[in-house]
């Protein structure tokens, strides 16, 4: 069975619940600063549909994203099995999730605009930090230009803050950290495969070909 594409409110719930579950009220406050926004009939229907399609998991009154499914579906187009395994391993690590997929960072990635956030696919959220690492490695000037053009300063600052907070909590020891880093390095070397995809917000394929 093909899963139906989630609607706008379901997509926002998916983005906000990648790391921590959120209630409808918390979702409304988080995206719109309005308590009742996600209690609207349309929003509730979309969220219920997302629960049926297994994109969201209901935990009492809260909704948690099925992160594993989102990661798998985001990379379903990748044919290279080794790269796919690396990406899944990278994103299933609690440090990666808590650092890059925390709701604050995601909101800042889209300049706190829920409308823009809802337009983007999960690939954008997963690929942006990898793209940033890759650009930083390849060409610092291009990295700076890209961050400033896309308005990602607050996002990168948030990632650095999250990393500082989670570095000692989420890694067991230095070996765990260096394994994670070597995984990241292997992924960002695979630019040809990873960043060929169509990405509406982040048109950087030409920069990477430089």
């Amino acid at each position: 069975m093909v899963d139906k594409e989630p609607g706008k409110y379901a997509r926002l719930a998916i983005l906000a619940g990648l790391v921590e579950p959120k209630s409808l009220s918390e979702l409304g406050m988080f995206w719109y600063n309005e308590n009742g926004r996600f209690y609207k009939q349309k929003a509730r229907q979309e969220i219920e549909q997302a629960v049926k399609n297994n994109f969201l998991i209901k935990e009492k009154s809260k909704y948690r994203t099925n992160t594993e499914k989102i990661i798998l579906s985001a990379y379903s187009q990748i044919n290279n099995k080794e790269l796919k395994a690396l990406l899944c391993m990278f994103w299933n690590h609690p440090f990666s999730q808590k650092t890059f997929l925390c709701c604050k960072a995601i909101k800042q990635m889209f300049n706190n605009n829920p409308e823009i956030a809802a337009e983007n696919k999960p690939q954008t959220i997963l690929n942006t930090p990898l793209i940033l690492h890759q650009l930083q490695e390849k060409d610092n000037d291009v990295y700076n230009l890209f961050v400033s053009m896309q308005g990602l300063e607050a996002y990168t600052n948030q990632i650095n803050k999250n990393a500082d907070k989670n570095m000692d909590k989420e890694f067991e020891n230095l070996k765990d950290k260096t394994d994670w880093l070597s995984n990241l390095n292997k992924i960002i070397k695979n630019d040809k495969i990873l960043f060929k995809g169509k990405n509406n917000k982040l048109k950087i394929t030409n920069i990477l070909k430089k």
Partner: protein
Amino acid sequence: MSRLRIKEQIEKEENSKIKNIIIGIIIILTAWIVTSLLLKITMTGKIIITIALVLFLAYLVYEWYRVYHK
């Protein structure tokens, strides 16, 4: 401009641990050479110093093990 610092942080931590362990080993070897070969001390003294240095070396190896394999 805000750079992503995660890679740098991990690399810095790894380099600093390795550097400290290498410095520790160099100190042990130097101390052993000075005490056992250069200074004129009794055989018992040499044995005691060697044991102390071996214990220090064992501590460094343990630290290295603890860092990489909890």
